């Protein structure tokens, strides 16, 4: 067994075990922390497949952003005690069956050796390409302009960045627009409308001190 395979087996086992615990844990904080562990394992798996940049982004966004957000919300809600509740829904047996079926489906589809792994060369994952027109003299004397592609081996992050800003520029811009929409949506949904009673209870000095009523509302909901 090669070292890489050992690493894969260990990390994969941890990932699967912790993801089972994400689903099985009663307390959402424990679930969130096990999900964090899963994400970190997945990041290591990414790096093993020549995707350093994606691995770093995975840790940065998932572990550093999304999971903190989850923990934040869990703790915000946990401050006021939740009533004891049943963890499983009524059709949990059916759910387990569906999961098992999907797992078996994947298992039968992916037999070892289907993809005939070549001797891996991840050079293409760290190469940027430049295109240039060049005049090529044909045997019959005519001159044809041809598009020449030239690759240059750089780092993985540079290659991904280059691809994002050239071939995938439009999807990239759409993604940024999507993020803007999601941000506005989250703010609009999450903002608390003050009830009439609460609005009356705003102390007078707060109304005097700030310039607009809107600002007071913001301060109260924060």
């Amino acid at each position: 067994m090669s070292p890489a395979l050992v690493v894969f087996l260990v990390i994969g086992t941890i990932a699967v075990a912790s993801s089972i615990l994400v689903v099985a844990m009663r307390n959402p904080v424990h679930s969130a922390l096990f999900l964090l562990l899963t994400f970190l394992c997945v990041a290591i798996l990414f790096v093993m497949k020549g995707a350093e940049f994606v691995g770093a982004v995975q840790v940065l966004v998932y572990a550093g952003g999304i999971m903190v957000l989850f923990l934040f919300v869990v703790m915000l809600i946990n401050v006021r005690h939740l009533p004891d509740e049943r963890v499983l829904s009524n059709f949990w047996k059916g759910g387990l069956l569906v999961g098992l079926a999907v797992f078996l489906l994947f298992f039968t589809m992916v037999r070892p050796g289907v993809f005939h792994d070549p001797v891996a060369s991840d050079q293409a994952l760290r190469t940027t390409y430049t295109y240039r027109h060049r005049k090529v003299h044909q045997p019959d004397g005519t001159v044809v302009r041809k598009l020449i592609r030239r690759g240059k081996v750089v780092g993985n992050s540079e290659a991904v960045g280059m691809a994002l800003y050239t071939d995938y520029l439009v999807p990239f811009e759409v993604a940024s627009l999507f993020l803007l929409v999601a941000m506005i949506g989250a703010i609009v949904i999450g903002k608390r409308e003050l009830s009439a009673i609460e609005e009356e209870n705003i102390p007078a000095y707060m109304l005097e001190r700030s310039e607009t009523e809107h600002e007071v509302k913001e301060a109260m909901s924060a």
Partner: protein
Amino acid sequence: MLEAVPTTEAYLMLSGTLFAIGLVGVIIRRNMITVLMAIELMMNAVNINLVAFSHRFASLEGQIFTIFIITVAAGEAAVGLAIIIQLYRLKSTINVDEARELNG
């Protein structure tokens, strides 16, 4: 550098397992936050697939798609958690089964 001995199939198996676990979580759990976490888990399983294929076919496309999926996951988490907070304010519960008023 590490050799690429863990094959593409091994990655696909792992990703399938994680996806199935996430699916089970979405179906059987009642706590909304856990359901959202299970969805994130499924997205990550898909990411593993894409990265494995990106390596197998020596093409950056898989990694690019992974980045877009991470973007979508971030937006989804933000909006989903905002909805959960609002639901909690409205009904003092984050149980999925309690939020079925439109179920006529």
